[in-house]
């Protein structure tokens, strides 16, 4: 039993005695408004018995001040005027609890994010806002009631959406800790973008060599239920108790019967662009994404298949594994925590007409170059010009294509990997073709990772790669040989430069998945302005979302390289484990409650509730009325917002509390 548990809890049933603690937050608040004046003001308000100021109330010393007042019996309600409750509400609640005060007898006035930071230049205005926010918070505090935290069990199972290097690492960590994992991947294989890469910077180790063992590890792992070619259809429930429906898309090939002979592929008459090869090669309508795919399962791409029936013939498929009538299968699983690792899309540069992508044959993207360099790629690691399939004697790379673009609709962020992958690709080519001329056109080289700067230095010094600082205004094609003629300015030498290269590689940006909205809608998580998923706090909770029990990792949260993605993967796994290891989680007891005597049973709340948490019951005294199932209620208040009789209220945001705030205009 801890020290805290032994204390008698102050429930605040007596007349409110409010302690108000106004934080300077260094100079963040105190530098804009007069904190002593705010304290003096707050002390004039009803039921306020203690008022104090301090530099940082969130610090140990600050918390101690509050605790001492509680322990001395001076106060039975705490109001802290400081930063956003989204920042430190939990901190102060714990402090209250530790001092023996029911943690829900605490309220926060946000005078930093909502006052001093947004009215920095209007100190008078900021002071007024701070004053009012304090008054409103005190008004609410007077109406607070002690509440008991609700504890719910946490299902020791994690759902991971996306099985790239990030999702895979999370899965393996979770499995190692003994938790069940459902790893859902929408394509037919795991591995993600990393499987497309040839070598990885700055160590130049082979991507496949480090990835494929992990992939087979996943497929062998007993704790990991691998669901490829599957998508999450529906997520209901809440932290610890999600109910997830997963759709397993039809392969049209019975995997039990299929012996993987591959004759069907050879006999299939339909050829389409190969996604894995980024259109640099073709595949058949029946296919395995790439040779090392895990699982190695054949799939018919029904969008391309013409159902000619050839593959279904016994002469082709001896075990008769083809089933054109295959139907999607839905499974529903109980999940405790969710990790989102859905990765990214490569920016499509065809919108940037000046670079000729999609118009000139010899203009390709960085990821396409990766496939050309890959030893199991379409040209077995010997890059060629698409125009004549010959080795290029000169290559130019252009950086920041689709990144760091401050024009309307552009991606403002840095994609963080392009400088290094262009350097890596240049070096790789140079290793085999020392005679080739390589140019990298850049704005500035960002080589911030471990060993990156050294890697870049060596590329310029030891490999003779030409780094040219300058943006390329426009390129054109030499009609005779399909070479690309580049005009630019070398801003270091301050002179114009014109080069003709045989291959032009655009280091295209990393972008959020085009359909990432479906994930935000599904999981009720948010996106930041750049379109990547939003973390709960940029510094302190980088893999948490605002929805408890859901974590984000890898590039879906923002551009990052492989080591960073793996680090986040492990962080997200650790966060999920932290939640599940306790076996139960405390949730805020902010639910809807019915005042039976007021309810007239119109049923509007039942229809309004998105969670089906309200149902009719027959009350002995009041007839057919609504009743809330607390296990399902999320406390959103959609029910209460429409109730004509105020018969349904939300604990924590009760009518009385909100009323008390509204009436404190002054």
């Amino acid at each position: 039993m801890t020290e805290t548990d032994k204390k008698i809890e102050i429930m605040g049933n007596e007349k409110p005695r409010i302690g108000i603690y106004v934080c300077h937050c260094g100079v963040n608040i105190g530098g804009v408004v007069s904190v002593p004046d705010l304290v003096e003001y707050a002390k004039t308000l009803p039921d306020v018995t203690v008022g104090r100021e301090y530099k940082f109330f969130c610090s140990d010393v600050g918390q101690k001040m509050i605790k001492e007042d509680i322990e001395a019996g001076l106060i039975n309600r705490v109001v802290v005027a400081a930063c956003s409750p989204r920042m430190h509400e939990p901190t102060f609640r714990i402090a209250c609890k530790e001092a023996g005060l029911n943690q829900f007898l605490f309220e926060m006035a946000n005078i930093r994010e909502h006052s001093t930071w947004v009215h920095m230049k209007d100190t008078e205005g900021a002071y007024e806002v701070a004053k009012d926010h304090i008054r409103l918070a005190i008004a609410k505090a007077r109406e607070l009631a002690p509440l008991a935290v609700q504890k719910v069990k946490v299902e020791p199972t994690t759902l991971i959406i996306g099985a790239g290097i990030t999702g895979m690492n999370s899965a393996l960590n979770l499995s190692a800790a003994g938790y069940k994992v459902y790893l859902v991947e929408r394509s037919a294989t795991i591995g993600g973008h990393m499987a497309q890469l040839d070598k990885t910077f700055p160590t130049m180790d082979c991507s496949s060599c480090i990835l494929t063992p992990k992939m087979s590890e996943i497929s062998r792992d007993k704790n990991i239920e691998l669901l490829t070619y599957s998508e999450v259809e529906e997520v209901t429930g809440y932290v610890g108790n999600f109910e997830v429906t997963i759709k397993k898309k039809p392969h049209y090939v019975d995997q039990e019967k299929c012996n993987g002979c591959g004759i069907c592929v050879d006999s299939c008459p339909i050829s389409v662009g190969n996604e894995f090869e980024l259109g640099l090669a073709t595949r058949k309508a029946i296919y395995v994404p790439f040779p090392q795919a895990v699982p190695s399962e054949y799939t018919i791409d029904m969008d391309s298949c013409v159902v000619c029936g050839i593959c279904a013939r016994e002469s082709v498929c001896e075990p008769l594994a083809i089933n054109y009538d295959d139907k999607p299968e839905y499974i529903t699983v109980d999940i405790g925590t969710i990790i989102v690792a859905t990765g990214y899309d490569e920016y499509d540069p065809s919108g940037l007409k000046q670079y000729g992508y999609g118009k000139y044959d010899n203009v390709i993207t960085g990821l396409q170059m990766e496939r050309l360099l890959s030893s199991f790629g379409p040209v077995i690691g010997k890059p060629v010009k698409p125009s004549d399939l010959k080795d290029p004697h000169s290559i130019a790379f252009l950086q920041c294509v689709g990144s760091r673009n401050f024009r309307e609709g552009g991606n403002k962020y840095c994609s963080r990997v392009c400088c290094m992958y262009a350097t890596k690709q240049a070096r790789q080519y140079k290793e085999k073709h020392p005679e080739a001329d390589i140019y990298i056109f850049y704005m500035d080289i960002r080589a911030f990772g471990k060993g990156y700067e050294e890697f870049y230095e060596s590329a310029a010094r030891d490999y003779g790669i030409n780094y040219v600082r300058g943006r390329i205004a426009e390129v054109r094609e030499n009609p005779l040989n399909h070479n690309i003629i580049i005009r630019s300015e070398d801003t270091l030498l301050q002179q114009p430069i014109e080069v003709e290269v045989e291959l032009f590689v655009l280091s295209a940006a990393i972008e959020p998945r085009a359909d990432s909205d479906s994930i935000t809608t599904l999981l009720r998580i948010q996106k930041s302005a750049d379109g990547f998923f939003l973390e709960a706090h940029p510094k302190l909770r980088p893999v948490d979302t605002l929805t408890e029990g859901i974590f984000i990792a890898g590039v879906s949260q923002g551009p990052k390289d492989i080591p960073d993605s793996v680090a986040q993967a492990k962080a997200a796994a650790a966060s999920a484990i932290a939640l599940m290891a306790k076996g139960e989680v405390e949730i805020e007891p902010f639910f809807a409650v019915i005042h039976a005597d007021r309810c007239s049973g119109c049923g509007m709340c039942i229809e309004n509730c998105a969670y089906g948490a309200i149902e009719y019951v027959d009350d002995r005294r009041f007839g057919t009325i609504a009743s809330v199932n607390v296990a399902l209620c999320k406390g959103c208040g959609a029910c209460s917002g429409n109730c004509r009789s105020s018969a349904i209220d939300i604990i924590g945001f009760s009518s009385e509390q909100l009323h008390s705030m509204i009436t404190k205009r002054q």
Partner: protein
Amino acid sequence: MTEPIVETKQSENKEWEPKIIAFLCNWCSYAGADLAGVSRIQYPPNIRIVRVPCSGRINAYFIIKSLTDGWDGVLISGCHPGDCHYISGNLVARRRFAILKELLEFFGIEPGRVNFMWASAAEGERFAVLVRKATEIVKKLGPNTKFEKKW
């Protein structure tokens, strides 16, 4: 450095400033307002923020009570349609707000007194822009005196 930069003082003959009560949903708009703060985006000091779990929580009573209690304006902000943390709270609310907005106008309350908006957790800038806009609208209307009681 702990000294306030400028002493706050009550200055007379300053132009009238409206006080607007802003009900913000916890998951999108309150976070958006926080982001505006973190990003130090400046907007006029006219709103007073009340946090609610969801725009669906906002009963018409809150809005009308705010008007009768003399707030010069009411601002309500929730998650964009489809982004509601509670699936559909904002959609339920949107119908309620549409009806209320029309009724208020029909009853002779200036249309700009009560304003509704969406702002996500990532839209600190949008939040500030719309607060600025709402403030201007209310300012133009002048003080809310219709509900003052004779004493």
